[in-house]
């Protein structure tokens, strides 16, 4: 049954076929809103972010100190045991320099790129990374293995969200700045 022996379906149309009315469409915006409960583990995680701290959860069976924290260990399949504070520093495991917004629109020329990274947090078990963004760094200076530190919102601006950390910046730059702006962090 070679494909060449069949007339294949699927008729390609263009955006202009729609705008000119050659093909009719019905445009609809769904009206949906959600309020997501944070749950037990992430609830505490967010609460501590509001305090300027990163907290993990430890499983005493496998010994993993897990980020994001969870009330059950998915490997040992048992309840986790204790809360453990981590550092607000870490290592860049991988990163991207992103020119695209969530909806595939492009970031205009001259505006800052999105700099997502997987950051392995100090004090959690090796390999425990979180997704966050980098900042206060030239994109071409970012390297895998780079040490970074969380940059926190001011305490009264925090709301118990992952965005209470505005970004992570290279540790060396953090030291210089922290002399000028002491007390701005934790």
């Amino acid at each position, binding site marked *: *049954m070679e494909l060449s022996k069949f007339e294949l*379906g699927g008729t390609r149309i263009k955006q202009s076929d729609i705008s000119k009315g050659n093909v009719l469409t019905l445009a609809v915006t769904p009206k949906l809103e959600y309020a997501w409960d944070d749950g037990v583990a992430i609830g505490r995680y967010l609460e501590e972010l509001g305090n300027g701290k990163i907290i993990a959860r430890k499983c005493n069976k496998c010994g993993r100190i897990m980020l994001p924290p969870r009330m059950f260990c998915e490997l040992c399949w048992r309840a986790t045991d204790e809360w453990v504070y981590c550092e607000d520093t870490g290592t860049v495991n991988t990163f991207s320099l992103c020119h695209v917004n969530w909806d595939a*629109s492009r970031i205009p020329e001259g505006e800052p790129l999105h700099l997502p990274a*997987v950051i392995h947090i100090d004090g959690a078990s090796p390999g425990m990374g979180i997704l966050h963004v980098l900042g206060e760094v030239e994109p071409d200076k970012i390297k895998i293995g780079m040490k970074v530190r969380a940059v926190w919102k001011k305490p009264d601006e925090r709301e118990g969200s992952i965005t209470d950390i505005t970004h992570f910046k290279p540790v060396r730059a953090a030291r210089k700045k922290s002399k000028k702006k002491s007390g701005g962090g934790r």
Partner: protein
Amino acid sequence: MGQKVAIVGAGITKFVSRAQETGKELAWQASKMALDSCGLTLNDMESVSLGSAPDAFDGVHMKGEYLRDGSGGWRKPYMRHFVGGGTGVFAPIHGWFHVASGMFDTCLVVCSEKMSSVYPHPQGAFTTIFDHTTEQALDPTLIWIFALEYNRYMETYGLTKADIAPVSVKNKKNAMDHPSAQLPGEITVEDVLNSELLAWPVNRLDISPASDGAAAIVLAGEHAAKRITDKPIWIEGVGWSLDTAYWATRDLSYPRHVEKSARMAYDMAGIREPRREIEIAEPYDPFTYKELHHMEGLLLANRGEAPQLLADGVTQRDGDRPMCPSGGLLGVGNPISAAGLMKVIEIFLQLRGEADKRQVPGNPTCGLAQAWGDLMQVSTVVVLKR
């Protein structure tokens, strides 16, 4: 196990950026072609299985029910399955459950996808795959996770973008011989490297397109298959595996869940030396690096060495281990579930010697198709034999 299961017919539409047809109409076109290809009618189908990607693309809740009439599922045992990007290769596995169990002798397996309905771009529909509390607040876009994985893969093995870009060159060229192809073409490595940079290290020509399209296959049990065709292609091994959703805690340089799914399928098919026994493969290639990453996870290349096989021409259609002879997602297109089933259909046609200009030499007898998805965490594999 109740009985052996074979693929006996196949159908596919063109893959296009936007189809005039609805998802139902595309499903109907592919399903009808699949039945026609083996001289059967819908009355011969005892069960129907449908695969389709997230409802968010269509904005239709319960898409399985919506697509049901086009897929021939009325008043029959009918079920929709969905495992993200892995759906298209889970489709034959899902159909296999129905027939291998002995419950049914035939099953029509359909995958239909219409990604063009959602505005401004299907990428937006993907944002809710990220954790709603700890990740979505960072305003992520889908490409992030692939860019992050791509970068980690390069770093771990000391690779460059130029080592990986030839996947796009090969697959788009292969797609020139596929009648469904959306983005076939002759391009160079420089074209890939100079195409628009979306999220370093991912350029535009590193990515497969969003597409509309459908595909379908007909499955039959051992005795029924031999009555229907003298060229049944047997499903000898199936495997699937899902890794943690805490994706940032995984080793992004190596897809361990792909290895798990492959080993499951190899064990079932009695394959001990995949590099010798798997003569052709369709590893999932939504991004250039994924074909290489998946070859390694499928144990068809040593870790970090798939790019060398690519450079040596081993994975070309006339090479020792052809990969994506169809043209893959990069060339044929990526209507998610239908793209995975397109890969299964390609191996089916190759093993029957019916792949037209795409036919790999040497009368292959054993091939593999694989798909992958979710938060880079699910892998589905089928091993097919003549």
